């Protein structure tokens, strides 16, 4: 049995925030990504300290939204971030 994943964003990304949104620059891929306010919030919380379920509970408590809805959205974002190459892979150091 494997331990639940604690998502963590890549430490080498450049993140610039404006009005609760973010533009992320991935120097390796030479790509820019835009994150809307929800994605920006989740992206910030992906620091490797909590599982998706734990983060979802925290967000649900703070926002008053149903746990199940929040967890679904966070998992979707997790997949998108991973597909876009914005998350650190297992074993990668926390700081570049």
């Amino acid at each position, binding site marked *: 049995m494997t331990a639940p994943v604690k998502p963590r964003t890549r430490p080498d990304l450049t993140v*610039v925030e404006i*009005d609760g*949104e973010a*533009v992320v*620059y991935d*120097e390796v891929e030479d790509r820019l990504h*835009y994150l*809307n306010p929800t994605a920006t919030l989740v992206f910030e919380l992906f620091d490797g300290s909590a599982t998706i379920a734990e983060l979802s509970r925290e967000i649900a408590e703070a926002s008053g939204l149903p746990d199940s809805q929040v967890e679904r959205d966070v998992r979707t974002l997790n997949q998108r971030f991973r597909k876009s190459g914005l998350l650190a892979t297992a074993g990668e150091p926390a700081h570049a």
Partner: protein
Amino acid sequence: MLEGFDGLEFVDWEDSESPCMDKLNRLDWIVHRSFELNGETFGVRTNSREMGIWLDRALGEYRTDERTTPYYSIYVAPQTPTGAAGIKRFHVMYRGTIAAVRSFGVDALRRTFLDELETFLAPTRKDAVFLHATLVRIEGVDVLMSRALATVLDDGRRRLLSAGALATPARWVAVDHATAMIVPVPRRLAVSPEILASLDGEADDPLEGRLRVTEPVQPQMVMTFVADGPVLTPVSRGVALLHLATGTINFPQVGPESLRTVKRLVAGTEACSQLAMASPAEMVRAFRQGVDEAFGPSGVPAGPRLLVSADAR
């Protein structure tokens, strides 16, 4: 190519890639020159012997004998008496087939041509952040327009001018690292100071529809372009930042710091919109509407409506 007087060559180009180029090719070009700037080679042609001599003096350091297709065409209008019977004609600098600059003054044309050529050096410079964008001033409101939008809106047919707007002729701007404001592009071309000084005396004529950045400018609005969707959509500053940042000419040189500089520039704006492809007339109307909705018809901020929704999608 035929040898001309005073060492200038006559032009015998017959490349015709489009009807527009065909039409342009029919003008009486008598001088052709090739230049190499930062590894890019391009051709310049003109119908004026004096302009040809000036090109050699101003840009001799960059001249190359390589044969090139003309990219810039500098048309100097014949001198005609002004007054009731005379017609004052524009001199024109074409970028490809687009009339990029019209001017009643030859020196103003030369100056804007040199400004244009500075673009070739921008990718390897670090002294500012260079963006593919155009500054447009309408009713006292400074709008930073992405290059794609400026190209669609103002492809040489003076649509912006007809809407009451003045635009910088170049399709790029310099953003100062320290202040994050748009500043005059610091010149780096190896052109003699005497030649540069001789060009700075002539003022722009508002009729020419040209805006010149002579001091730092904080744009109040950003307008960008998307292919599809409603013709006018307010967007967040985050979306505007993404669009502008993708047009950073010297991103490889400046690196991620350029993103932070552009962010500060965008953070200083009060409204951002995007225009989608539509007929030119519709897009010009949407441009005016976007500015009016944000700032009021007089350019005065329109109160709470100025606040841009964070929901960009």
